[in-house]
């Protein structure tokens, strides 16, 4: 098969099928867990390699990669000619492509409410402009994203580090 290229790029790893390549930057991941909650067949953190491009159709993989609230997961067409169209897409994606956070053409980004999303059996993911206070620290977050532990078992409190999955944390 032709696709036996390098599986790494600066900052991460990449995974291809015949049509697209998915790029994974672990440093950017905040464990929001959209990927494996939506598509465990492709994104399984318990498997090595954790991404299996044979697990779903390309359209579905694109859909789930676009859900990633950070730039930890991005994608490109293997046919570079087609990538012109998605460059905008990817930029938006990085700037909160999630539709509920897209500003409605008005210049009122400041007015956008901060999104506080409870990830089922996982962290709480907070996106937008807000003040973040913890242990005497105070940070102004601008168009930022943080993922905070809800299971109590993170080694990196108050942040999520993915431990909820290992301990089987459940919301119920």
């Amino acid at each position, binding site marked *: 098969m032709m696709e036996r290229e390098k599986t790494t790029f600066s900052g991460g790893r990449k995974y291809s099928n015949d049509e697209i390549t998915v790029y994974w930057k672990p440093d950017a991941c905040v464990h929001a867990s959209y990927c494996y909650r939506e598509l465990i067949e492709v994104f399984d953190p318990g498997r090595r390699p954790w991404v299996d491009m044979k697990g779903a159709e390309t359209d579905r993989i694109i859909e789930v990669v676009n859900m990633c609230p950070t730039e930890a997961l991005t994608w490109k067409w293997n046919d570079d000619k087609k990538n012109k169209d998605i460059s905008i897409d990817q930029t938006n994606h990085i700037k909160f492509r999630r539709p509920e956070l897209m500003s409605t053409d008005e210049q009122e980004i400041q007015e956008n409410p901060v999104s506080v999303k409870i990830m*089922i059996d996982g962290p709480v993911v907070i996106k937008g402009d807000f003040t*973040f*206070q913890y242990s005497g620290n105070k940070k102004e977050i601008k168009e930022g994203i943080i993922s905070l532990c809800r299971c109590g078992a993170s080694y990196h409190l108050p942040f999520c580090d993915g431990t909820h999955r290992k301990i089987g944390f459940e919301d119920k």
Partner: protein
Amino acid sequence: MTNMESNENKKPLTIVEVIDGGPLKITGNIILKDLKKDISDNPPEVYLCRCGYSGNKPYCDNSHKC
């Protein structure tokens, strides 16, 4: 008559505060939701469980003190 207009123009500053040994307190202009639905649109303040033991998740019910 209260001046609603000036009230609306002022953007509420959203504050996310991690309370040591306690919940996550969030005040300001937020939408609280989970994967499926909006849970609450612009609640005045919420206290979210951080210990994993609340019987009323995602909210804190003071179970962390037990």
